[in-house]
């Protein structure tokens, strides 16, 4: 494995290239060559290649992409490809950078993947708060259609594909794949009961593949350079390159492309230039708020899907690889409040435990912030997270797990500070939050 600093970006190779959003410039840099190559091979061969690459979905759950594709029923007449660009996990902004800096690369990945799963319609479901990114993608789609890269008989291969852009109405839950489907169908985005999984019954009841933007871009490079190249990067169980968003109290936040398995400390201290004003770290969110919090002692960890488990460090997973750094000056009670507020606002309200539980925890957090916190509230929050998320099966989708892990890790790992902060506020007297 090459060392981190030598790594040459693949997914972000066109970032900073002037006018690369234009089709002509993208093509000059070898764009759509991989598509030509892909269209000459059998779709099944691409699926096979993706399987062999060991690509894990980049949307957060890390499900093997190739395996997902093989769930599609054999005799299907219709297939949809949904591109999940509803990047709403707090701290995550890598899809955004991809779409705004290199929309054609994203589109090429989509076309190749659609060909592999034999979809004739692809829907890019983009977050409402991404208007510029939507515009960039929209114009790329327009250019591609004009150049015969979309539509009927793409590049003379006989393959037909239309790509539609759909801007959501601004809800976190729409990023959940079946919530996304409901929303795309024009309904309230309440996640569906699974099984059946979307690959069997998805959009409009037809077999549907839903993948993250970054995942599909990885497919492009797997087809280009082969599964072995992909496996040569990253760890045994988490192969390939990954975009890491580093934000929070760091000197130079941003998106950094590194192979999976890169040390979290490397990302913080080398890529992002270290903590602002060279303070020490209090806590780090490794992969978006849902994954939970690491203490300063736990950050010497390789960023790979297998590194984050409840047993190892109390975290839900690597998530989207969105690192948020909190320095020593951070008030963890405010962090708890903010976290609880986010999930109570974003719970879709379908399942009892999540709907009422997130609301309850937010009310407690609000009271703590106002000086009315009790030690037993922390016990209730801990118990609550146990009942909502850790006891699996409590809800239809993963949102309640996502709400549980950060709050639980906060309460278990930072309890002393939380108690202290509550006392401070109590001493100041009750005030309205």
């Amino acid at each position, binding site marked *: 494995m090459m060392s981190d600093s030598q790594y040459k970006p693949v997914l972000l190779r066109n970032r900073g290239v002037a006018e690369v959003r234009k089709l002509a410039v993208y093509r000059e840099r070898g764009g759509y060559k991989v598509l030509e190559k892909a269209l000459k091979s059998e779709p099944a061969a691409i699926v096979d290649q993706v399987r062999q690459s060991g690509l894990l979905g980049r949307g957060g759950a890390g499900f093997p992409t190739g395996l997902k594709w093989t769930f599609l029923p054999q005799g299907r007449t219709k297939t949809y490809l949904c591109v999940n660009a509803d990047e709403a996990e707090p701290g995550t902004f890598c899809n955004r950078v991809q779409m705004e800096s290199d929309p054609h690369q994203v589109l090429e990945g989509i076309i190749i993947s659609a060909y592999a799963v034999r979809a004739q319609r692809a829907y890019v479901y983009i977050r409402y708060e991404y208007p510029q990114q939507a515009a960039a993608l929209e114009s790329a789609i327009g250019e591609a259609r004009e150049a015969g890269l979309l539509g009927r008989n793409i590049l003379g291969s006989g393959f037909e594909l239309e790509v539609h852009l759909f801007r959501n109405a601004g809800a976190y839950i729409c990023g959940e794949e079946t919530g996304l489907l409901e929303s795309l169908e024009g309904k309230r985005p309440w996640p569906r009961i699974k099984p059946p999984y979307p690959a069997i019954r998805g959009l409009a009841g037809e077999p549907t593949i839903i993948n993250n933007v970054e995942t599909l871009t990885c497919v492009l490079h797997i087809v280009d350079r082969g599964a072995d190249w992909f496996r040569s990067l990253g760890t045994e169980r988490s192969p390939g390159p990954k975009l890491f968003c580093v934000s929070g109290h760091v000197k130079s936040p941003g998106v950094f492309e590194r192979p999976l398995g890169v040390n979290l400390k490397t990302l913080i201290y080398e890529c992002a230039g270290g903590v602002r004003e060279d303070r020490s770290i209090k806590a780090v969110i490794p992969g978006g708020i849902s994954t939970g919090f690491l203490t300063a002692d736990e950050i010497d960890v390789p960023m790979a899907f297998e590194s984050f488990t409840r047993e190892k460090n109390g975290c839900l997973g690597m998530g989207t690889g969105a690192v948020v750094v909190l320095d020593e000056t951070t008030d963890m009670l405010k962090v708890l409040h903010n976290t609880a507020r986010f999930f109570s606002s974003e*719970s879709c*309200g379908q399942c*009892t435990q999540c709907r009422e539980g997130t609301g309850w925890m937010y009310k407690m957090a609000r009271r703590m912030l106002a000086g009315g916190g009790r030690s037993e509230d922390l016990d209730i929050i801990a118990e609550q997270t146990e*009942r909502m998320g850790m006891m699996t099966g409590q809800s239809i989708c993963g949102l309640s797990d996502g709400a549980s892990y950060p709050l639980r890790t906060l309460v278990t790992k930072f309890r002393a500070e939380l108690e202290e902060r509550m006392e401070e506020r109590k001493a100041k007297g009750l005030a309205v939050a």
Partner: protein
Amino acid sequence: MSGMMAEAQEQFVEFVIDDRTVQGRMGDSVLRTALDHGIAIPYYCWHPGMSVVASCRLCLVEMDDFDAKSGDLRRVPRLVPSCSTPVKRGIRVYTQTEKVKASRAAVMEHLLLNHPLDCPVCDQAGECWLQDYDYWHGSAHSRMIDPKTKQPKKDVGEHILLYADRCILCSRCVRFCREVSGGSEVAIVNRGHRCEIDVHPGCSLEDKMSGNVADICPVGAFLDKEFLFRERVWYLQSAASVCSGCASGCTIWVDYRDEKIGRFRPRYNPEVNGYWMCDDGRYLWKQVYRDDRLMGFEFVEEGERRAVKWDRVAEVLAERLREFVEGHGRGRLAAVLSPMMDCETIYLAATMVRSMDPEAVLVGGPEPRAERNEVFRSGFTINAEKAPNGRGLRMILEKLGGPRMTVEALRSALAEGRIDGLWISGGYFDDTIDRTFGFVEKPGLLAVHDTYASSLSERADVVLPMTVWVEREGSFINAKNLVQPFRRAVIPPMGLVQDGQWLAAMVGQTGVYRASVVRKELAKLLDGFEAYEPPKLAKGIH
């Protein structure tokens, strides 16, 4: 034949719930099978007449399923919602493990966090699933000391109120309006714990299925204005009845207390109405308490109206009819029988008249009609025929034979003086009697057997108050030709008796009137009346 038997066996699979081996129908859920076997798994959002959302999470159970790779039976790590888990041969379901109990307790605690706990003033109290399940699975205390999320009360339709803060967001009402009534007026707005049931802007629950949302609401969120604050449900008793609003013949429960009707509720009937009933029928109980009801038996004697007590009616009426037949001769008496009456009463009235005058003419009464059937998305139908027993009437008259006539023919027979004794039965909720029989002037004898006062009853020689169907027992034959018996729910008003009581006495049957006795006789005349009795006990609504 053996193939068919194999197929029939295929439709059931055997599996285990809590050490009990049960038979589940293929395609059914674990929950449904458990309930069919009397195994209580609590649930809110599931309803057998609507799609499954599995969102309340109360019916979660533990399960052993076959491992995909090894094929061994293994405990599924997650709790599974029994409402959306299909039955499968050989699986084992556990409904009483510590994990399941903890999960139920958690759901109950959560549902009650923001609930106002205003049971003392809530109409649902006593049949509230929050009360029941909290008693069984929850705890007596709330640990939340923060203010509850408050939501408003709303007037959402002609018959319906919504107390949004009592709602547990099971979404039954939303699905009902989408899948059953088809109006799609109700939706959930907002997210998370601020989720709230509401009607879409500019919409209200105005269609004729709206009353059902109050029935299916497991808590006191949707309430029926007509029932609001009227009765505490634990005082109510239920009688199995059949709606007489139209020819559909929805089976219903009549809930009553102290001989006073509280409300009608649909009674599950897969052949006719499923789990539902329409508002036309739901509020038909008001017909019992109309001011214009005929409240006493009256006979004109020597130009004067005289009241006759119910126990002498048979005697006095028989004498009066006999006098008429003797005075005018046979074949000059016509009896108009009403499709508002049950088969038993029709049969008794017809045989009674024929016992007085074997050549009496029988006339099928008018059948009020709307323009067309009203069909809702689920197929639920309000029939255009607005009488419950038109078919029963026609069939009985057919079978009885003898002289018959239509209403039109009766009119000319009266004008030509071929008929001069007239017996008219009514019981119509509308003005059918006045509209149809305006031509009747003053025949030799006019006997009116009707529920409500009319111009006809004013000029009648004999007035015989008819009971409303909930005050008697009997059976209707509905639009699908189903014989549907019903029980008496309340006793008739003071001074009145079931019509069968005096009619039966006139044909020699003494003692307390029993529709089942007449039904046995009817069975000789018509198929389908054999030994069919309505259920005695009320079961809880779904």
